[in-house]
Every structure is written in C-alpha cells, then in structure tokens.
C-alpha cells in the first residue's frame, strides 16, 4: 500500500486539505480542524506508547496543560500571542519531564497508574482553582489574534501547525533516536546491554510526546476559544489511547486515522443518539477481539506479510 498509493496520496491529500474550507460549510470546517488537532494529539501519544512502549495512560493531561497554558497567557498576561502559543506546549513538556522522572522507575501497568494518579492530581487542582483556572467552568471567550480567529483562519493555522508537527515527529521516529526508542520498546534489557541509556531515552521520548500533546492543546484554544477541565480527565486519556489502538499502534499514521474515525463518528452520532458510549464501547470491543493491530495495521500486514509492521 505504501509504495503504490503513496505518490498519489502525497499529492491528493494536501490538495484536499487546502481546498476543504472553500468547499465545506462552516461547521464542517470546524470539525475538520478538530480532527486535525486530535490526530496530532493521538500521534504524540503514539510516540510514547507505540514507539517507546511506555504505558502513557494520562496523556490528556499534557493536552489540557498545553491548552490552559496558552489560554491563561492569552487572557491574563499582556504578552504577545506567539509567546502564549509557546508557553502552553513548553509547560506541557515541563510537566511531562517532572511526571516522567517520578514515574519512569516503574514498569508497565504501575507506570500507567502512577501517571494517571499524577494526572488526576493536576486535574483536581485545575478543577478546584476557581480564581486562576476558572474551576469546573473552564475559561471561555479566549481572545485569539485576528489573523487566525475566523473559522478559515483557525483551520489553516491548525493545518499548518499539525502538518509541521507530524512531519517533525515523523523525522524523529526515523532518526537514530527513533530507532533506539523502538529498540528499547522491543527489548529494554538488550538495549541496556549494548550501552543504551534506557531511562534517559524514555524520558526524552516522554517530553517530546508531552510537548506535541501540548501543541494540540494550544490548537484547541485557537479552534474552540475555550478550555475546560474535562479535556484532561482520565477518561479522555483512554479515549485518545483508543484512537491509537483503532488506527494501529505500531504504525505512524494509524493514530491519525483512528482519531479522524472517532471524532467524525462522535460528531455524526451526537446528531442521532445520546448513547455515544454504547457505540464507542461496541466498536472498541469488536476491534480488540477481531483487529488487535488496528485498522491500518491490518492493511500494512496484508501488503507486506513478511515484515513486522513498523512503518
């Protein structure tokens, strides 16, 4: 699939994405922007869970901190907007480093649960700190620079930043560093034996994942003009994990596919039914039982039956 369809896809996809706001009505442009930034979020999570093999169960916290960082800078400081867009992701990366240092000694499920616990702590503080974060109401009507405040403007900004970040992550995964973290994922003991500093590589991967998760959060502020604590609640973390799983965890573009599928399905389902959980739960159950490699993972395995799916 990758070899035959790639050139065509490489031309068609950007063209379609660029033309989108001129073809689709306003609401659909907004949905497309949400799809893009959620795809970025899922890809950043996949860096930690799919490529490094760390049970990143609290990823939504970095998304939320990125969003709140940007939102608070825009509403409360007189700093120029570009600074705000840097502060959010950097705050997420810093939090990721701190949480990583605490969690990294633990393995697998313990790592994931401690991360959820720390994430819940951050959530609890944001949820209760009315005077600073707006508490459970969140922050609404965040002023965004004029150039990117219109639906089209915010869409193109989201598209540009997402493309840039996904490209950066693609390069990271393909770099020597990317190979090392995949080696650690597959066999940490052997990686350590050949002289790789396992912990510092894992920590670096976590910080990178946290940073790009924070970027996705900042984009959310641009698109939605509001933030609320639910975006860092643990159930959303698991929902992003589902996106990765649905698309395929050991593929690079799988999480984007999964994120698109879930966001679109959610928008579509919310028009027709109140029982979104029932739908998502049923899909997830079927995927886990029948397609544990995810949708894209199955395609890639079919196309290249002998190689392990790592593209």
């Amino acid at each position, binding site marked *: 699939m990758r070899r035959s369809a790639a050139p065509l896809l490489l031309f068609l996809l950007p063209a379609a994405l660029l033309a989108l706001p001129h073809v689709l009505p306003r609401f659909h442009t907004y949905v497309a922007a949400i799809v893009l930034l959620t795809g970025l979020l899922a890809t950043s999570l996949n860096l930690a869970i799919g490529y490094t093999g760390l*049970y990143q169960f609290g990823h939504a916290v970095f998304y939320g901190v990125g969003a709140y960082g940007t939102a608070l800078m825009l509403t409360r400081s007189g700093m120029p907007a570009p600074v705000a867009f840097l502060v959010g992701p950097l705050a997420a990366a810093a939090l990721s480093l701190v949480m990583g240092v*605490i969690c990294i*000694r*633990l393995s*697998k*499920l*313990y790592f994931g*649960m*401690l991360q*959820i*616990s*720390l994430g*819940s*702590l951050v959530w*609890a*503080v944001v*949820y*209760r*700190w009315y005077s600073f974060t707006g508490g459970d109401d969140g922050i609404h009507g965040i002023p965004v620079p004029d150039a990117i405040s219109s639906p089209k403007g915010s869409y193109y900004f989201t598209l540009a930043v997402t493309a840039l970040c996904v490209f950066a992550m693609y390069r990271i995964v393909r770099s020597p560093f990317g190979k090392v973290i995949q080696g650690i994922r597959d066999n940490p003991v052997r990686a350590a034996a050949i002289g790789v500093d396992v912990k510092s590589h894992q920590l670096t991967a976590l910080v990178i994942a946290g940073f790009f998760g924070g970027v996705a959060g900042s984009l959310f502020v641009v698109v939605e003009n509001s933030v609320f604590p639910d975006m860092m*609640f*643990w*159930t959303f973390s*698991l929902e992003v*994990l*589902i996106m990765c*799983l649905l698309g395929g965890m050991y593929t690079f573009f799988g999480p984007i596919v999964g994120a698109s599928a879930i966001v679109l399905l959610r928008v579509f389902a919310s028009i027709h039914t*109140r*029982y*979104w*959980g*029932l739908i*998502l*739960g*049923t899909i*997830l*159950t079927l995927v*886990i*039982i029948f397609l*544990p490699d995810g949708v894209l993972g199955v395609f890639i395995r079919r196309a290249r039956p002998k190689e392990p799916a790592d593209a």
Partner: protein
Amino acid sequence: MGFAANLFSTGTLSQILVGLSRTTILFIVSSGMSLILGVLRIPNVAHGSLYMIGAFAAWSVIGFLGGGLFAFLAAMIVAPMIVAAVGFVLERGFFSYLYEREHLMLLLLTFAFMLILGDLVKIVWGPEYRSVTVPDFFRGSAEIFGLPLPWYNLFLLLVGPCIAVFLWLVINRTNLGKIARAAAVDGEMVGAVGIDTGWVFAFTFVLGSFLAGLGGALIAPMVNISIGMDHSLIMETFLIVIIGGLGNMWGALLGSLIFGLTQSLGILVWPQFGIAFPYLAVVAVLVVRPRGLLSSTW
C-alpha cells in the same frame, strides 16, 4: 496557622470516623478489584460500573419492596447478586476467551465495557438522580466521645471488618480460595495438576463483582445515585490496589485506609484542595515503594 487549629478541633475525631466509614466502602469495592487483579490479572475498569449498577439496583429493589428495614436489607443482598450475574456474563462471555491478551488490551476492553454499561444504566434507569432514604432503624446518631456519629456510618464501620473476615475465610479456609490463590501465583501449574481453572476464574470474577455491587448498594443511602458515579470511584479503587500491592487483599485494606483518611483529613485541613491529598499520598507511597506497600502477586 489556621490549618493546625482546624486539625485539632473537636470536629477532627468525628471527621475521622466518617472518613473511616467511607473507607469501608472503598475497601469492599477495592477488595473485589484486588481479587480480580490478583487471580485473573484483569485491570478491570468496568469494576466501577458494577458498583454503579449495585447502587441503582439497590434503589430498584427498595422501591419494589416498598421501603422499610426489610426491603433495605434485602436490597443489600439482592442488588449485589444482580451485579454478580452481570459479572458472570462478562467473564463467561468475553474475558474467559481473552486471558492471554496483554494487559493493555484487557484494560481497554474493560474500558469499552465501562462505556457500554454506563449507557445501559442510562437506558434502564434513566439519566436522573436517584436517592435512597436510610431506613428508620438507622435514623439518628450515636454519641461517640460526646460527638454525634450517624447510626448508618456506625453500621458501615461494623460491616467492613465482617467483610474482611469473610474474605479471609473464603480465601484461606475453603478449597476454592486455596485454588484461586494458587492460580494467582501460577495458573498454568494449577491447570497442569488437573484442576479446571476456568470455573475458579469465573467464581473469582463473580465474587469480585458481588463485592463491587455490595459497595454500591451500601453507599446508596449516602449519595445521589447518578450516572458517572463510577468515574471517580474507579480511579480511587485502582490507586488503592496499586499502593496496597496488586492482588493483595490486606493491601486493599491498607490502601483504603490511607486513601479514605487522607481524603477526609485533607478536606478538613484545606477544603478547596482536599480532593488532591489522596493523590499526593499515592504519589508519596509509590515514590518510596514503587510496587506498593505489601507484597504483590504480580
């Protein structure tokens, strides 16, 4: 500081006792989860949903029997049994085929069940709040060291140890319990000596579900029974079994005590951010003892 003055005021003791009665619920629910984690190795996110179903089922049973002490006590038995039946279906229908899967997949599968069960509860009981009144028998308060403690909280304080003793007897004094403990250490070996582990696993899951339902039924008179009451509880339960040591029943007790007490004292010390204290306690425990306080079966 005002904090310290708060801590030593007369309210502290009753706050601790109320916290302890809440600990009872946490212990009952998390002991069920610990059992399932220890023997079946399923990080069951849907455990909270089972607890929620227990609360709703208790409301229905009490409504069906028309209230009163008898209806209440009947609900405390029937509601958990309904939940146990749900657990039986889940185990036989799904988990029994999936034990070999990695923990991440099992966790996500149980998350899927949490989403499905949450909506099913919404369909069966509707999205409104439900509430159960405490039967007259438990009305009023007892005087403990001159401080009032509601009879129902006192009742919970008695139920907790009874459950602990009951579980200890089941696990240590019955054949089934012994086999389950052996399966927790090495399930393959238990199968190799000719014991059908399938039914031991089913029994364990059903017992764990029963405990989740019992926790839900017992908390019914104390809270608004609502959709979403599973979301915060499941997180608390997970953290309790983690700090106690995965699969260790006494760890679940110890973890519940730590969680329940830091929660009630935290709210006393700093009302706004009281809910953050138990999480801080969890972090502190795991930084010092990364695999939990007591020995884990994992």
